[in-house]
């Protein structure tokens, strides 16, 4: 069998999608052809390389942006079909109420807001859903929603049905939104943060057994009190070499030492060092904190708060505590260095 006849089968062979017959052909050829063996090894490594390409994390505001766009879409997409048009005045009131309730439910169903930096812990649980940050909605409620007396309390789980006919009793006599004294949206406080950076190293180690080596890395981490993340540690089995990934968070002064110790596991590539700018994350935390504090101060300075406003004040205080925690975690986090370790088995030992 000549190389040209076998070449097209090598890539599918690496992915194990060749038939029994094809496997036999390929293996018979590989047994005698160094060149094609090398090619198979190259394909396996290429595949592993691509699988381990570092993609940037989803930017934090993604869900919020999409949420806003979806709400816009919804009004055009479902609106005309679903909403019957009663008398104009009560229709407006009903919509305002529905939106307020919807926003309330959305915000309260995801509170307490997931942490920007909690991703590190969350990655341990592969299936953990990414927390949505509903802060914008909360702020929107505070800044832009006129108060309507018949709005259901935040957190009440009533599903707003846009198709539901408006009951006159619900809005009767109070269809005009009650005006808040200082209804004008406040200026969003501008926050300037210093550029912040986070370091990471990525290293690939060719090992005999990815599982055992993962355990060794964990032992190493635990012995030194280093936090580790094993979300990539389930074995990816393919002919392109079983592989596992594990990430460590170490202090800056531990980097060299830890990298040195990892060399004991097997043939190690020179680690790639990347510096990622994380200013945006800091910026977002600072901005949200500033907005929340501004909103809190505004409410706190007001006399004779309604029950609803008091609830909001409590929510805001809770939020501020949460975001301060996030800020602290983020600061701690950016002082640490991440070491991503890819353990790749030498898959092709014939």
């Amino acid at each position: 069998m000549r190389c040209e006849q076998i070449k097209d089968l090598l890539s599918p062979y690496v992915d194990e999608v060749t038939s029994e017959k094809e496997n036999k052909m390929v293996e018979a050829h590989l047994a005698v052809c160094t060149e094609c063996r090398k090619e198979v090894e190259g394909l396996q490594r290429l595949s592993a390389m691509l699988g381990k390409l570092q993609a940037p994390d989803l930017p934090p505001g993604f869900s919020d942006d999409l949420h806003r766009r979806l709400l816009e879409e919804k009004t055009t997409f479902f609106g005309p079909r679903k909403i019957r048009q009663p008398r104009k005045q009560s229709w407006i009131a009903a919509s305002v109420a529905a939106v307020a309730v919807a926003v309330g439910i959305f915000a309260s169903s995801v509170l307490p807001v997931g942490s920007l930096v909690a991703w590190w812990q969350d990655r341990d649980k592969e299936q953990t859903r990414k927390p949505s940050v509903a802060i914008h909605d909360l702020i929107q409620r505070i800044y832009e929603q006129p108060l309507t007396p018949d709005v259901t309390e935040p957190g009440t789980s009533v599903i707003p049905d846009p198709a539901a006919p408006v009951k006159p009793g619900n809005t009767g006599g109070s269809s005009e939104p009650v005006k808040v004294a200082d209804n004008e949206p406040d200026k969003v406080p501008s926050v300037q943060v210093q550029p912040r950076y986070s370091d990471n190293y990525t290293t690939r180690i060719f090992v005999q057994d990815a599982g055992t080596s993962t355990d060794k890395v964990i032992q190493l981490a635990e012995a030194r009190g280093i936090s580790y993340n094993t979300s990539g540690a389930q074995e990816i089995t393919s002919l392109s070499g079983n592989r596992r990934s594990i990430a460590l968070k170490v202090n800056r002064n531990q980097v060299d030492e830890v990298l040195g110790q990892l060399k004991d596991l097997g043939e190690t590539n020179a680690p790639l060092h990347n510096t990622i700018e994380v200013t945006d994350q800091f910026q977002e935390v600072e901005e949200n904190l500033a907005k929340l504090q501004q909103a809190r101060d505004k409410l706190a300075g007001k006399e004779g708060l309604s029950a609803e406003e008091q609830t909001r004040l409590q929510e805001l205080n809770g939020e501020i505590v949460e975001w301060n925690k996030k800020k602290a975690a983020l600061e701690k986090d950016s002082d640490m260095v991440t070491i991503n370790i890819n353990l790749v088995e030498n898959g092709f030992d014939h």
Partner: protein
Amino acid sequence: MFQEEELVKRTLQGDTKAFEELVQQYESKIYALAYRYMGNEDDAYDMSQEAFIKAYRSLRSFKGHSSFGTWLYRVTTNVCLDELRRRKRRIVPLSLDEPLATREGDEVDKEIPDNTPTADILYEQKEFSQYIQDLLDQLKPDHKTAIVLRDVLDLSYEEISEVLNCSIGTVKSRISRARETLRKKIVERELLP
């Protein structure tokens, strides 16, 4: 899967929140996919948003013949490729794997001068990922799509054939071609045996 069907159904009944649950399940993957197609974070962000919005708008055309995920990858692939095509009309980049035809009609491989640095320097310059991304960007769109779905997103050949709406044979050959092109380039840089 049943849960996804339920969420799709609820979305069609006007429940945006159901759709947002679907988004949560897929946003990271869709972003990663868009990032590989587009090659930078800003475009990846825009294209992922676009893909979800488009999926939302055209959800009625999702008949459940494939999984929702596969369908969503397809929508994303189309959104990205459309955008790339739109840009291509303005700039014509050199393709690495599209052979040049000679006057006699024979095809010859293109020799693109490779100005990228050698392996050691690459590591020193911390540009490895970017280097691979650049190589991916030079592949023919069909080939790039196939290899990204396979090696980056880890989809099976069956799933890829559904996403791309082509036969498994075609998937095999596209992946094979793409890998071969990339492998040769990387071998030259001594990053592969």
